[in-house]
Structure formats: structure tokens, C-alpha cells
């Protein structure tokens, strides 16, 4: 169905880790933090529609 979502999130995680390491070693700590924040927000933007759809389906299914 959307197994790729898991691998996309893992890929973003690894890339952000590498990026923040590189940025940290080159002395720019703020950019490293901003990069990890951007990665987090990107992943959240992927996952939130799924959460919404899941909770809506459950609500309709069980007439909550």
C-alpha cells in the first residue's frame, strides 16, 4: 500500500543525521539544528494525512 513511506522516513532521518554531522564539524551548529528541524517538519507533513485518514475511518466505522 504505502510501504515506501517507511523507507522515505528512514532515508530522511539518515540524510538529516549525515547533514547535521557535516554541518557540526564545519562549525555551523545553528544550521545543523535547522537542518534537523526541517527534516522533522518534512516527515511530519508526510505522516499527518495518514493519521487524519486513519482516525476519520475509525470514527466513521465505529460511529464514535
Amino acid at each position, binding site marked *: *500500500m504505502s510501504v515506501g513511506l517507511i523507507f522515505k522516513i528512514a532515508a530522511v532521518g539518515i540524510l538529516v543525521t549525515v547533514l547535521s554531522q557535516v554541518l557540526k564539524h564545519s562549525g555551523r551548529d545553528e544550521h545543523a539544528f535547522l537542518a534537523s528541524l526541517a527534516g522533522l517538519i518534512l516527515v511530519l507533513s508526510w*505522516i499527518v494525512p495518514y493519521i487524519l485518514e486513519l482516525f476519520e475511518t475509525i470514527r466513521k466505522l465505529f460511529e464514535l
Partner: protein
Amino acid sequence: MELVKVAIFGIATVLLAVELKGHKPVLSLILGMSGAILIMMFSLDKILKVMEQIQTVFHLLGQGTSYFMILIKVLGVTYLCQFSSGICRDAGFGNLAEQIQVFGKLYIMLSGMPILLAFIEMIQNL
């Protein structure tokens, strides 16, 4: 066959999440959560089939099925509270998970009250 798919999917998600835990704990939590969400969505169509079977049982039973609706609602509440409290427990917040469970139990007790009252009234009328 689907069972094998879900099992392998779970293992793959856990492996990736554990690897990410060292560098980015937040992303590993989100990974675990998204894995749980996908598996839950995958199991939802099974629940849909069960619901259709239950509807046909209702038609056979005819009257006296008003309280079954509460039963289905309670099922949904437990399912949802179990899901969200599990995620909180994964993140390490046991107390938050407990509070969600407590709220679920109270909600179920509240929605089960009419059945109890109807039962007591029935006894009194005997």
C-alpha cells in the same frame, strides 16, 4: 499471505527505527508510529468485513439490537485508546498512556450505563 507481509513489514520498520534511535530519537518514534498506522490501516478493511457480517446478523435478529450499537462503539473506543496509549508508551511516557487508558475505560463505563439501567428496570418490572 497477508500475515507474512505484515510481520515482515513490522520487522523492517523496527530495524530502521532502532538504527535511527541513536541519532534522531524523534524520527525513530515517528517511524514506529507510521509503521503502526500503516498496519492499522491495513487491518481496517478486515474490520469493515466484520462490520458487514454484524449488520447481517442484526437483520436476522430483528428487534432488540439497539444495544449492539453501544457494543460497536465500545469496540472502537478500545481500539483507538489502545493505539494512542501504545504510541505514548513507545515514546517512554507510561503515565500519559495510563491516563488515556483510564479515560477510555471511563468513556466505556459511561456509554454502558443505559444498558445497566434498562436491565435493572426490567428486573423491577418482573
